[in-house]
């Protein structure tokens, strides 16, 4: 039996890189750290994964962008962010003050009409490696809100994209898998073949809410990513399955609301976790984990 309490307070490693503990904040749910400092002492975190970063600034999707659903929520933010140069110049310097491990979540853009995702990822990795020291790169192949085609489901593409990012990065590379696939272990093996240093999962599940008064989807973008406790059983199952096929470090994500949920991920095979929607629900409680 694993000592779960001890694991919660122990350093976590990806390759040679050591993170002070296995509790990270998930991309998109803590911005670039600024507004979370009122509630959490960033220095205590094992890592902070900043908001999805793209090559060019993105203004994001039309509103409404978020809506509550049973034991969860849907979001279709559309990766609103100041672009990689904005992140390097305006956002990272702030986080550096806190000595918290910084993980940059990068996204290539692929719409129904055009797909620059592969070259985006390559350039993002290069720009970051050449201009700023960070503690990890998380490849977001799975954002449900910008991807026109479901690339997160294409093993050949995944392997290639990971290889390109790995080749151009100095920091450890973590690949974040999408749950919107019928073959999660296949995807995990593909990113391992591509050379990823760790795997994080899961991103949000594609969902929809319809307002029966207007008979229309509530979100401006119609579809969005489901997160929160509602998705936890799916995340646990996927972490468990991926653990069977890889020895790489796994970071479990999805619906964590309390310490016992983190332990459940550890039991499924995760080495670390990321907290997402919890930041919106009960942010104070996070302080009790350290």
């Amino acid at each position, binding site marked *: 039996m694993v000592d779960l309490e001890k694991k919660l307070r122990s350093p976590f490693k990806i390759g040679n890189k050591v993170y002070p503990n296995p509790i990270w904040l998930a991309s998109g749910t803590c911005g670039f750290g600024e507004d979370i400092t009122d509630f959490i002492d960033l220095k205590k975190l094992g890592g902070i994964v900043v908001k999805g970063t793209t090559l060019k600034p993105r203004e994001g999707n039309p509103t409404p962008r978020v809506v*509550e659903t049973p034991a969860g929520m849907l979001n279709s933010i559309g990766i609103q962010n100041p672009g990689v140069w904005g992140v390097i110049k305006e956002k990272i310097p702030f986080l550096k003050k806190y000595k918290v491990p910084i993980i940059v979540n990068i996204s290539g853009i692929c719409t129904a009409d055009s797909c620059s995702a592969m070259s985006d990822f390559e350039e993002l990795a290069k720009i970051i490696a050449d201009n700023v020291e960070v503690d990890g790169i998380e490849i977001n192949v799975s954002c449900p809100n910008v991807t026109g085609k479901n690339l997160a489901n294409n093993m050949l593409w995944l392997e290639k994209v990971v290889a390109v990012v790995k080749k151009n990065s100095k920091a450890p590379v973590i690949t974040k898998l999408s749950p919107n696939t019928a073959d999660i272990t296949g995807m995990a093996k593909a990113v391992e073949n591509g050379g990823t240093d760790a795997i994080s999962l899961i991103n949000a599940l594609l969902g929809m809410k319809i307002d029966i008064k207007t008979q229309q989807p509530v979100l401006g973008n119609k579809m969005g990513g489901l997160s929160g406790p509602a998705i936890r059983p799916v995340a646990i199952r996927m972490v468990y399955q991926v653990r069977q096929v890889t020895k790489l470090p796994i970071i479990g994500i999805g619906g964590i609301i309390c310490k016992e949920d983190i332990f459940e991920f550890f039991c499924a095979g995760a080495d670390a976790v990321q907290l997402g929607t919890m930041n919106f629900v009960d942010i104070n409680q996070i302080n009790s984990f350290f």
Partner: protein
Amino acid sequence: MSKPIQAKYKVLENVRIAEGYYKITLEAPYIVRNYLPTQFVNIKVGTGYEYLLRKPFSIYEAMDHTISIVYRVIGKGTRRLAEYQKGEFLDIVAPVGKGVQVKNIKAKKMAFIAGGCGIASLKELAGHVAKKFDLFYGVESRNQIVELEKWRKLANKIFVATDDGSEGYKGFVTDLFKEKVLQYDAVYCCGPKVMMRKIYELFPQNSYFIFEEYMACGIGVCMGCVIKTKEGYKRICKDGPLFKGEEIVW
């Protein structure tokens, strides 16, 4: 501006004040000491996962060590809120939003314009500029009018419009305001978006609007609650909820 905190606050009273409207009063000394007008609170209703996200509500009044919130029951979260009893506790993140420095309000003759539930978001600010404004207030029907006697002490004149004509003018509050636009040097408005746009068209220069949008984090991290401005999307929960009309892409 003081930092928001997450804390539990005791319910002192929770009463129905008009048809569909309730007023809840909380013992909240931290909020009273630290809020600015137009800031709001984010309430976690219930304890389980049924009402997962916090719900935003304006501070309606703040006194000594208590704040009150006026809310309209429109869905399951507000229905649950109405069930809270004296002595129970609510988990709240507050104060949030940018807030207004009252000393910067130089206007002498303002119009405060409220549509329905918007009255709840204007009251606190109105208390700081008493007798410098007229109130325009539109509701569906007279039995939904909220605490008009309190507004009589604050406003110079009050103009009420109801959809069914049961009180005041029968029709839209925007029509009432249209006649009197020239009398004012500033406008503060909260109500349905279509109404606010109409007011902006009538009074584009020195007009301010309180916006509502679905929120997730309520603290500025998720980019969920944005509004389109001339400088791109801004966060209602952090950069608002009050915005100058001219900033907005209507």
